[in-house]
């Protein structure tokens, strides 16, 4: 009898092991996927670093177009152009950032995107980078890279089953306003400190820095300076643990100089203004900047606050 039971146990074990590989209907019929596989991320970052290093060595922004897009490419191209125009005999710093965190959402359609947090000790900053694949035939490109100070604490991000939760830019659930509206509010506060938005948004480091620069430019003798701000469409938003949101917004800044007759305004050597407006401004001039700002919208309400930014001159006109 014991022998019979032993045979039965063996047979049942065999059947159970066999059943592990029996075909089953799929658990879910939802059309979606992880935006990127975990093992792909280091390769994507390595490729980006290699191309950026080549571009920095050549002082040529063209290779960057294979690894960057949008305002990041515009800002970096502007930076490279400044270096070229100033003909400075130095290479742009090339650092080797370390990948700290990866946050991958599940997506149901292209574009695919994910967030990588890297620390760059040489530059003394952390970067919260968004890589995007616009279509199935496009490569991964860096589209946002706001920088934060090393001691800046990023809010915890909410995950579900290992995937970070993305928020639609027009979704205001749990927030004082939708991420798109919050970015617009932030730009309005910069554009007009005396506006209602200016009263709502608290002064953070970025706002203070921009207002100080504008104040300095406005103090030039014989120059009428004005600064305007706008915001690009918000694409990437992540839900934070407290029900808030982390918003990647691109702010478009326009500095305009009107110079009185007989006066020429020049800028100190090495500045972007000097590079783009080599002969100075004797009539009028305009500098356009892009600023990628990482905005935090607290859960349950509260105004947007900038945690980091990355920006620079992207174009200029002047006479």
């Amino acid at each position, binding site marked *: 009898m014991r022998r019979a039971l032993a045979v039965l146990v063996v047979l*049942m074990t065999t059947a159970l092991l066999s059943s592990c590989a029996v075909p089953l209907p799929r*658990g879910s*019929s939802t*059309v979606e996927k992880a935006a990127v596989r975990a093992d792909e991320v280091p390769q994507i970052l390595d490729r980006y670093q290699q191309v950026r290093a080549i571009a920095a060595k050549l002082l040529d922004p063209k290779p960057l177009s294979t690894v960057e897009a949008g305002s990041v490419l515009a800002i970096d191209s502007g930076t490279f152009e400044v270096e070229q125009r100033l003909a400075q005999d130095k290479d742009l710093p090339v650092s080797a950032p370390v990948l700290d965190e990866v946050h991958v959402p599940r997506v149901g*359609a292209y574009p695919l995107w994910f967030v990588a947090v890297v620390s760059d000790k040489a530059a003394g900053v952390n970067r919260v980078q968004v890589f995007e694949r616009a279509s199935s035939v496009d490569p991964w490109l860096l589209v946002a890279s706001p920088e934060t100070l090393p001691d800046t604490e990023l809010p915890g991000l909410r995950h579900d089953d290992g995937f970070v939760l993305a928020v639609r830019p027009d979704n205001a659930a749990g927030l004082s306003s939708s991420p798109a509206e919050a970015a617009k509010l932030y730009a309005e506060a910069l554009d007009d400190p005396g506006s209602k938005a200016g009263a709502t948004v608290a002064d953070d480091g970025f706002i203070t820095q921009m207002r100080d620069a504008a104040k300095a430019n406005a103090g030039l003798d014989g120059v009428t300076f004005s600064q305007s701000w706008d915001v690009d469409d918000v694409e990437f938003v992540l839900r934070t643990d407290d029900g808030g949101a982390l918003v990647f917004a691109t702010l478009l800044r326009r500095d305009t100089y009107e110079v009185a007759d007989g006066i020429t305004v020049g800028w100190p050597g090495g500045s972007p203004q000097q590079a783009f407006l080599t002969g100075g401004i004797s009539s009028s001039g305009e500098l356009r900047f892009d600023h990628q700002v990482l905005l935090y919208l607290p859960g349950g309400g509260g105004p947007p606050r900038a945690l980091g930014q990355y920006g620079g001159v992207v174009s200029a006109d002047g006479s």
Partner: protein
Amino acid sequence: MRTRLGWALVALSAVCVALGVAVMVVLGPDSRMTTGPHPVDTDGFVVVTAPKVLTWQGVRIDVLAELPANKPVFVGLGNSVDVQDFVADSERLEVTSFGTPWSPRTREVKGRENLPSSPTALDWWIAKSAGLGGARLSTTLPDETVSLAITSVGSSNLTGLRVSLAYGVEGGFLKGTGLLLLGVGGVWAGLLVRRGPDLRRSEADDVDGEQHVDDEEVVYVYLDDDGVEHEISAAEAAGYDVVETVVVEHPPGPEPDAARVVYVFVDDDGVEHEVGEDELDDYEILDEEDER
């Protein structure tokens, strides 16, 4: 109770036997079903399955796409998010449903007469294959929404496309065999369970740590109100609760010494006299067998 349990086990095991036999017959020794080649009527560039056509996971599929005149062809399996984006703007034949062994339903979708990129250059295919005149894809369907695409490569189209398909379970025949054996074992066990006394004897074996002889006799006794025992049959005993089980062992008696040899002296009158081993030296041993 024991009888019903036994019958239930037998019935369940019989189902296992039937399933095992069915799996073995359907899949065959190569563990898969094969169909084709089937002509596919299209002059476009892409044949693709809709996201909800391939609804199983763990199924092994082999797809062979053949084109005449050594035209290049590509076969790939990818997540539907990737595949649908890849073919979204291209003219294509979309398979909207599929019944085994081969009954696809399709629809034509208008679009550009090319693909946005060569399929062979893309890195998101789960499995892919390309070749001149034919391409064969062998893979196991994963647990995600996937689409299968057959595309032309370069400037050619898919005119004259023929598709062969095989699908099955890796090691399916062996699994069917396992199921069959499990069923047979289950039937056996069910019959053993139904024969309750054997089980009890086995329990007694375990307790005593001794082996009992197979011809043990079980006597069922009914004790009436006067304390008088009445022997009843096993069938009658099934209607009563077992109050006590008494194992009565027969006292060990003298066992015959099979190895003992008896030496006999036969006198002149033919009378046998038993002699001891110590007296053997006085006699000549005449083997009984030899004597015969």
